[in-house]
């Protein structure tokens, strides 16, 4: 198993956002994390990447516990992510955003940077090369000198994916990558996700667009009120009475 989430609970001031959630991902798999709003999906992402320290439980990557590591160390171990409410470095150019994403796979410190040593020059060249590759992969070629803030929304989502890929993750966490997109754009992102899987990168995906989730995911985990209520293939989940109730119950409530 590449990622194991075991008995994770997260309590905020007496309120449980996650209750003993467990599941795992095999290498090369794509798992969809679904559930109504407020079910704890993004909280779980934040726990995996150590933005939050869980009240209880453990996350392991390739068998090694991530407990106590800070976010940057977890990124170095191979988990990169995107954010639900896009968090690009908006006053940097598109190119620079991806170059920053490359940080954990490069090493030049203060002195090599100032002295412009051969190794540093070579590394900087490699960073630019990789950046060009990734920008072309996500369809942003030609935008490299624009400020991230000036990109249209759909392209910002793509840039976030390119930036996360720059860290050469073993596992990438995508938080609602097609939120607010039309069918055409959604299909393009779905194709991009398939390509990423093709590189052997494992994917954990939060998404509300059910038709897309059903199409791209190998398996699904359903959260409701912080608890895992179902896990299985898209077909199994579609016919699961608990899941139907969770979604219908939500609609009744509205």
């Amino acid at each position: 198993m590449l990622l194991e989430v075991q008995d994770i609970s997260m309590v905020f001031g007496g309120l449980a956002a996650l209750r003993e959630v467990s599941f795992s991902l095999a290498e090369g798999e794509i798992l969809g994390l679904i559930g109504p709003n407020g079910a704890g999906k993004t909280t779980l992402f934040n726990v995996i990447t150590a933005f939050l320290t869980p009240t209880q439980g453990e996350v392991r990557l390739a068998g090694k516990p991530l407990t106590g590591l800070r976010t940057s160390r977890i990124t170095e171990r191979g988990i990169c992510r995107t954010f639900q409410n896009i968090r690009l470095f908006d006053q940097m150019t598109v190119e620079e955003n991806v170059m920053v994403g490359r940080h954990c796979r490069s090493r030049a410190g203060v002195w090599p940077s100032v002295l412009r040593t051969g190794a540093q020059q070579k590394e900087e060249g490699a960073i630019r090369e990789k950046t060009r590759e990734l920008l072309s992969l996500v369809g942003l070629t030609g935008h490299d000198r624009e400020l991230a803030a000036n990109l249209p929304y759909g392209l910002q989502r793509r840039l976030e994916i390119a930036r996360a890929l720059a860290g050469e993750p073993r596992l990438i966490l995508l938080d609602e990558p097609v939120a607010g997109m039309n069918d055409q754009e959604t299909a393009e992102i779905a194709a991009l996700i398939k390509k990423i899987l093709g590189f052997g990168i494992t994917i954990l995906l939060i998404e509300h667009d059910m038709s897309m989730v059903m199409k791209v995911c190998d398996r699904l985990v359903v959260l409701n009120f912080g608890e895992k209520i179902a896990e299985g293939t898209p077909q199994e989940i579609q016919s699961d009475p608990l899941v139907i109730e969770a979604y219908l119950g939500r609609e009744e409530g509205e």
Partner: protein
Amino acid sequence: MINPYYLQIASFILINIILGLSIYITLSTGQLSLGNAGFMSIGAYTSALLTVKVGLPMVAGILAGSLLAFLIGILIGIPTLRLQGVYLAIATLGFGEVVRVLFINWESLTSGAVGIAGIPHLGRTMLAGLQERGFSSEQWGLKNNEFISLTIFIILLAITVLLLAFFSRLFASRVGRAFRAIRLDEKAAEAMGIHTTYYKILTFSMGALLAGFAGALFAHVTGYISPADFTYHRAVEILVFAVFGGSEVLWGPVFGALFLTVMPEMLRGMSEYRYFIYGTILVVMMVFRPQGVLDQPLLDRLRGRRGGGGDDAA
């Protein structure tokens, strides 16, 4: 042609540019230090005492002063930089005052409020050294005091140019990108694998080092220091250099230090209102132009090219 008075102002501008850089480098990761006057005084006092009382050569004093400021910067930075930015501002404000109180009260070492006089002078030491080797100012058609002022100016200019080259290369590298990423969104930067605490402590202690270095140079240029040279007002003045000139581009603090050092000299009678003006600048800039007079788009326009981003931070 060579006017010692102008050269002296130019020398102070250069020291102020180094001070402006000292706060700029800390601001580059979104951290505000109000203790740079304190670090400046540590550099100044360390070098002054080592040269006056121990008799060390000036270069050793200046290096020791800068290094001590750097080490103390790390000590202050470690507990505070793990927390929100305001903690650093408060801790450094307190630090600056404590250092000043210490220098006032530790009379046996520092002569208290009276200060230390007779600090070896950068220009005179150079001249004396050259005269031993048979040089005299007249060979260059200069009077001794002209030669002294010119020497100081040239040394400081060389140092400043080297520092600017250092930082312009640093900011155009992987490390500089990490600094900017932290300033723009610290959490996202951490998620990119950037060890944000390390880089924050790095920029803060580099700022302390530069301030200490500028302080040591100041001691050997003026020949006299006292706690009154390193008050909270000095810390605010240093901050104004960067906030007014521009805190997002390397040329910002350079322009700020240049403009704000020349202005009071040109407008006589303005010095009385100097701090009124500084205070007003801080408020007005935050309201109307928080990035300072110079920013990247303006620099691009001045250079007559568009786009280009910030990878060439100089």
